[in-house]
């Protein structure tokens, strides 16, 4: 890629034109959007149901019809999220059957050593941040925490939605357990997203790659150095800005 002469001066003022790297497919970006919309709707319609004895909840659900309505809305978004989960799993299984499933998101021993080095960095024991691949261990934790969290929510949700059908082949004791899990996991997942995910994608840096599909070169070099080097064959530490190359 060549840069027009007129931009070269701008580049020297460190407002360089940066290369962008493809990170998420359109399908993945849609999946993320559907998950945001459905989980937010499920959280907002679920919370007043969880805290039904609280005054604020009773102000919202001021009539039995409203309670019924909010449950209908909850069920509609539950179906949407379930379809998304089913799509995600079947796509994964399909790719696996074609031996095309990327291993990038699966945790391995490198993540343990990355986490250890990161901890040393955070405790001022080293000045070197670990160099990450396409997904760093923080992002893998986010994915797998929510993978299992949403899994628990979907399974427990259907158990308490259709308790009679479920107990026709499973022991009755799982109904109150599912109710407890559904009610608690929702809060656990919400707290996790709020402190972990929101910090990493909004506060530490603004990372909109899941919406745009691409990540700029600066972030690639700093946060995914190994992936940058794998893709470009360049040294991520090199001071030359990618834009000029």
């Amino acid at each position, binding site marked *: 890629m060549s840069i027009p002469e007129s931009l070269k001066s701008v580049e020297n003022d460190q407002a360089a034109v940066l290369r962008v790297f493809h990170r998420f497919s359109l399908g993945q970006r849609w999946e993320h959007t559907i998950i945001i919309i459905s989980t937010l709707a499920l959280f907002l319609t679920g919370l007043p149901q969880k805290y039904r004895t609280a005054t604020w909840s009773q102000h919202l659900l001021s*009539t039995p019809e409203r309670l019924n309505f909010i449950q209908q809305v909850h069920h509609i978004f539950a179906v949407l999220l379930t379809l998304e989960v089913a799509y995600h799993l079947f796509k994964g299984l399909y790719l696996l059957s074609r031996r095309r499933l990327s291993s990038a998101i699966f945790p391995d021993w490198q993540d343990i050593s990355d986490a250890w080095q990161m901890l040393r960095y955070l405790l001022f024991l080293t000045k070197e941040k670990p160099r990450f691949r396409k997904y760093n261990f923080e992002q893998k934790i986010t994915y797998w*925490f929510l993978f299992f969290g949403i899994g628990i929510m979907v399974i427990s949700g259907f158990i308490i939605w259709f308790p*009679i059908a479920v107990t026709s082949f499973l*022991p*009755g004791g799982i109904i109150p357990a599912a109710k407890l899990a559904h009610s608690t996991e929702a809060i*656990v997942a919400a707290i*996790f997203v709020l402190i972990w995910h929101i910090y990493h994608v909004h*506060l*530490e840096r603004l990372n909109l790659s899941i919406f745009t599909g691409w990540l700029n070169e600066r972030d690639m070099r700093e946060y995914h150095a190994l992936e940058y080097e794998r893709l470009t064959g360049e040294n991520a530490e090199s001071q030359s800005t990618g834009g000029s190359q």
Partner: protein
Amino acid sequence: MIMHKLVLSRTFWFGIGLLLLVFFFFPATALAEGTEEYCLSCHGNPELTLTMESGETLSLYISPEMLEQSIHAAKGITCNACHAEIQTYPHPKLEYGTKRDLSRAYYLACQSCHSVNYDKTMDSMHAQVAEAGNLAAPICTDCHGTHDIKSPNHPRSLVSTTCGKCHTEIYDQYATSVHGGALIQEDNPDVPVCTDCHGVHNIQDPRLESFLIASPELCANCHADQELMAKYGLNADVYNLYKLSWHGVDVTVYKARWPTIWHESALCIDCHGVHDILKTDDPASSVNPANLLATCQKCHPNAGPNWTGAWTGHNEISRERTPFVYYTNLFYTSFTPVVLWISAIYVLLQIIRATVERGRRALR
């Protein structure tokens, strides 16, 4: 005008003659002070009767012994406190066609002293029924008696047998229940009599949603009382645990917000029964494990045999009784808080490190 026919025995005409003589020497005002002795000189005769227009025979006999034992006599309250309109002999003519009309007129006298309780009865289910035209609906005297008025709850079982005079079917159920049995056989001072749940003078329609929705609190009056339940080896946490349950939360909300709207969630009585409550280990109890599924199926008709396992009972979470809930709870009280705390501390360390790094760069 209504004609009343006094039917008196021949020997008693003599007594009447004598009375007239006595009357001659007594001023009429003497009656106003009311002396039982004076009234009983006629009404002490067991054969004194009156035939009413309806053909009913009204006994005018007042047993002196009975009167003596009444709670009013002990307090010095005499005939004319209630029979205030009778000032003289001969008495004014009775203007009531039937015995019932007479009773329904005379009981109004109760309110001159017992106005608070009398006013309460005006709001009662019984008063509503009477207003709707059923004159058999009870008035003060039907429960408390007339000349034989005694303390209404000595013995306590008297309360329930009094209600049972009309509510025979319910009384029979109650008598065989754990509550009624203990009351009738042991004169147990703790079990509820009818009025403990239904109220005394302002008894409400127990079929109304507003009564039903508040009924768990009636049970809780005793069953949430630690001291009382300990006496019988019963768990006093049942009500608090019920309130946490699916049914209980629903009932709490309906009671708080929509007490008059019909709801479907189970109240204590829906599972345990109403007047026929038995001990849970009684084989005939509706909540005995052998009968529990049938009880659940009243509301959940398609429930299968596994369904009753979903009922955690009025018990705390325990590994033996509710293992699924136990381990789920363990997971969320030990594992997840640790994970969340680690996440929070990690992010906090990141914030500190990033801030220090930024500061260093700014100083450079």
